[in-house]
């Protein structure tokens, strides 16, 4: 049954396998259901990595991914599996991020596969992202294998979870493969199920080339490495290719398979998943989701699915010390090489100096970028409150997009303001419905509806302003549902918003970096929160400090910080004046590092504390 196709150009013995011996699949799961651990087990079982080179979460190359147990970048690996039928199969596992911020990446990964393992934690059961990801997979016509993971846990309840798979997802639970990725239980059955139950890819290797770019990595020596799925035709070195959406052309230098390391191959044929190096300088030059075709014999139509990843959350990054501005600029440039969704432009604040206004796919994306800047580039940053992008229509009829409070036009000139809304889906046990509905109401949720999934479980759908979700919505949800609620969202549309700009004044001077655009109903609450936080974190000074929240000229919140009342050394004799003076010199040095607003010294810790979003309420 050996059915290798003899390559036309290359006479090497390592040719592409027959389509029937390829399986392209991904693993979709709610966060923490064990996706990376399962990938690790599959990789080990197929011997794709020497035991001594193995480490947990092997597909996650960034430290931050490994530490937090999340996947941010897509990755892929080709596994060689000797199946029970005696044949060797190429199993292409495409690892996808699980978080909603990166759903565009998930889509593209799904588009590159024929099948998906739908992973469900045996104790947690079906959660919001499980459902969302399953619908996505069905949208792309993937064959699903339900996998129940963590069956070794004492809290595992396979029967309940099976019922949820039947009732919440509408899948046949009897087909579910039960595994413990941690212990390696059931992995062989799963590999066999991948071979026998997932369809082989189809596609004509002789047809005009169409390959979907599902991710890109940046290599300091080779430039951009495109990860792609060849749907039709063949990709080979020396070929002139065109990216169909950007219409840019490149010469292919190298193609190959991802086997943790890149392994060169003579070609990639229809059905294959692999990489392409084509002298592309930065990820800015390409678009993830674009279709690669042959420049000489182009396909008529690109593959569907190209959609620009648009940032939805914006925040300004300022270096703690102004001389780090250049370093920040360089670091952002470098990060952007590998992160096409990250946008940034120059910004400046009277209080905080020069910085960048950055755009992100969501709060996790923001957090990840910030963390990488800190960790990989050793930068300490001040980050302004995150904001969504508002659509402002002026009385002149002109429309503007505003994501930076400092660019908010004079309210007198504004005809209408609109804000982005999301469709939020919350899955939870029935008993939390009331409190979660109340949370949605607090957050200006509209058209909340719910329906029962399996017994005792509810899916709540609510239309919420995205801005309301940016502030600790997820944490509140987790608290209110004691960890049982899960959340997923998609962007809906823009709707009219009664918007005001809240300014924070310190001794009458506006701290521009703390200005925020908020809904009028929320203005007082937000202003008071900021004032209180500042009052807690700005140390006493020699004068009284008034902290106010204002909308236009109207003060809507205020707090005060009393001046120092006691700051003198009790004993200053015995002649040891040096030690005391040195303490004061240190204090004076410390003062220099503080941000001066008017005559008030604001330590960076105050900005950090105030701008933290996770525990505001």
């Amino acid at each position, binding site marked *: 049954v050996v059915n290798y196709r003899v390559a036309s150009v290359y006479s090497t013995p390592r040719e592409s396998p027959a389509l029937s011996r390829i399986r392209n699949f991904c693993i979709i799961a709610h966060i923490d259901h064990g996706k990376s651990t399962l990938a690790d087990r599959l990789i080990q079982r197929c011997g794709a990595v020497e035991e001594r080179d193995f480490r947990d979460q092997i597909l996650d190359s960034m430290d931050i991914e490994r530490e937090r147990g999340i996947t941010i970048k897509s990755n892929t690996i080709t596994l060689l599996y000797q199946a029970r039928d005696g044949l060797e199969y190429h199993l292409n596992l495409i690892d996808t991020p699980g978080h909603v911020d990166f759903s565009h990446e998930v889509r593209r990964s799904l588009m590159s596969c024929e099948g998906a393992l739908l992973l469900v934690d045996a104790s947690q059961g079906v959660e919001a992202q499980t459902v969302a990801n399953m619908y996505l997979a069905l949208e792309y016509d993937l064959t699903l294998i339900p996998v129940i993971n963590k069956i070794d846990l004492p809290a595992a309840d396979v029967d309940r979870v099976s019922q949820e798979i039947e009732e919440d997802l509408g899948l046949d639970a009897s087909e579910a493969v039960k595994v413990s990725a941690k212990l390696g239980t059931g992995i062989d059955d799963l590999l066999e199920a991948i071979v026998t139950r997932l369809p082989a890819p189809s596609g004509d290797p002789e047809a005009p080339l169409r390959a979907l770019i599902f991710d890109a990595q940046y290599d300091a020596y080779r430039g951009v490495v495109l990860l792609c799925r060849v749907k039709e035709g063949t990709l080979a070195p020396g070929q002139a290719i065109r990216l169909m959406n950007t219409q840019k052309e490149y010469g292919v230098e190298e193609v190959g398979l991802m086997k943790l390391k890149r392994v060169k191959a003579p070609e990639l044929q229809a059905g294959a998943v692999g990489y392409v190096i084509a002298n592309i300088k930065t990820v800015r030059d390409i678009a993830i989701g674009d279709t690669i075709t042959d420049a000489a014999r182009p396909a008529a139509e690109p593959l569907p699915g190209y959609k620009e990843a648009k940032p939805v959350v914006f925040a300004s990054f300022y270096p703690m010390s102004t001389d780090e501005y250049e370093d920040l600029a360089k670091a952002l440039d470098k990060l952007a090489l590998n992160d096409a969704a990250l946008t940034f432009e120059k910004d400046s604040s009277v209080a905080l100096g020069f910085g960048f206004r950055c755009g992100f796919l969501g709060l996790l994306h923001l957090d990840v970028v910030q963390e990488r800047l800190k960790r990989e580039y050793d930068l300490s940053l001040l980050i302004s409150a995150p904001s969504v992008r508002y659509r402002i229509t002026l009385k002149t009829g002109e429309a503007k997009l505003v994501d930076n409070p400092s660019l908010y036009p004079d309210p007198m000139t504004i005809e209408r303001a609109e804000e982005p809304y999301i469709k939020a889906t919350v899955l939870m046990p029935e008993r939390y419905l009331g409190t979660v509905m109340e949370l949605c109401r607090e957050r200006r949720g509209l058209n909340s509806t719910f329906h029962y999934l399996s017994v005792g479980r509810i899916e709540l759908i609510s239309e919420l302003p995205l801005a309301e979700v940016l502030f600790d919505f997820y944490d509140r949800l987790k608290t209110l549902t004691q960890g049982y609620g899960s959340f997923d969202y998609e962007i809906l549309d823009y709707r009219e918003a009664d918007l005001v700009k809240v300014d924070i004044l310190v001794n009458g001077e506006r701290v521009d970096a703390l200005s925020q655009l908020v809904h009028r109903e929320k203005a007082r609450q937000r202003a008071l929160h900021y004032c209180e936080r500042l009052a807690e974190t700005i140390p006493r000074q020699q004068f009284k400090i008034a902290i106010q929240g204002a909308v236009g000229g109207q003060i809507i919140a205020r707090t005060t910080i009393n001046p120092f*009342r*006691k700051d003198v050394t*009790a004993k200053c004799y*015995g002649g*040891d004046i*040096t030690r*005391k003076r040195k303490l*004061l010199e240190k204090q004076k040095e410390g003062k220099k590092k503080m941000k001066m607003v008017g005559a008030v010294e604001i330590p960076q810790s105050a900005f950090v504390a105030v701008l933290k979003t996770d525990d505001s309420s």
Partner: protein
Amino acid sequence: VTAPGLYLHVPFCSRICPYCDFAVRTARPERRERFVEWLLREIELNRGKLLGADTVYFGGGTPSSLAPGQLARILEAIQTHLAVVEGAWIFLEVNPEDVSVEALRAWRGLGVRTLSLGVQSFEDRVLAFLGRRHEREQARRSVRLAREAGFHTVSADLIYGLPGQSPAEWRGDLEEAMRLAPDHISCYQLTVHHGTHFGRQKARGRLQEMSEDQQAELFDFTHRFLAEAGYPGYEASNFARSAEHQSRHNRKYWDHTPYLGLGPSAHSFADNHRWWNCRQLETWEEKLDAGEPPVEASETLGPGELGLETLMLGFRTYAGVDLSRFRVRFGFDLLETSASLVERFKDEGLLFLEGDRLKPTIAGLAIADRLAVSFDLAPLTLSAARS
């Protein structure tokens, strides 16, 4: 020109107080005698330096842990080698439990004019908390006896601002002190230092310092109460019945008068130069044994350092900062370079101008360190960079 001061550090105590961060230790009589020998050596080693001191201060530790004969030998040595002036003002710190009619007579005989008593409190409960060896009655008796013994100035040290101390309790201590009528009182607000027993207690959460606002209220109360009782303050922690009872020695630390400090950890200052001795008794001795000055380190103060010290020390005294002297020493006018700051401090009731002096109010004294760092001394750092 003021004559220099001489400080002699006696590093012994019969017990280490839980708040104390001075160089102190316990020792047997032989050990103390050995110390005296080494101190005499150090005095000799400094022969010819800072001659003509007119104040001599025995501090510690507990100088009263030395026998009068030992003190006498030290006094003799400083006269011989350091030409301490005839009739120099001698200060002696003593603990109430060391006070007896005989001891007082002996100290008087040595020429001691200011006897400073480590009373700390008149409350037994507080004394126990502070780890003191004496009790209320001993404290009272020591002040009475000292007054009867005919010293020029009898001073009592008190500590306040203890965790949980109520204003009424502190007032009780002050009232008791008034009844005993010393000539001088020092009231030190408790500072919990890192590395002390209290410091460790604090780190473990077993000791909670008084809040800043409460401390400030007690500070203000202390200054007002004592002024009304006839003991006007002249420094953040010091009060005297009249100017003649103010400490002539401590004043020297506050206005950059030269001083020589001998004994472990003692500090010296002369000609913009400050140096200090090894803190450890053993190291101090070893160096002396090797014939070296037992100095641990030294620094030369530039105009920036001197300027900051001038403000830091000036604002902790009622006399404040002498602006014309400042102008002469540092070459610029504080009122010109920090005009708006001074105005602001005046408005806030922290500083006031009297003649050519910028003086702190009581509220200003309470934040003297803060006031000092608020001033822009950039003209000084610039001139230092140029020179």
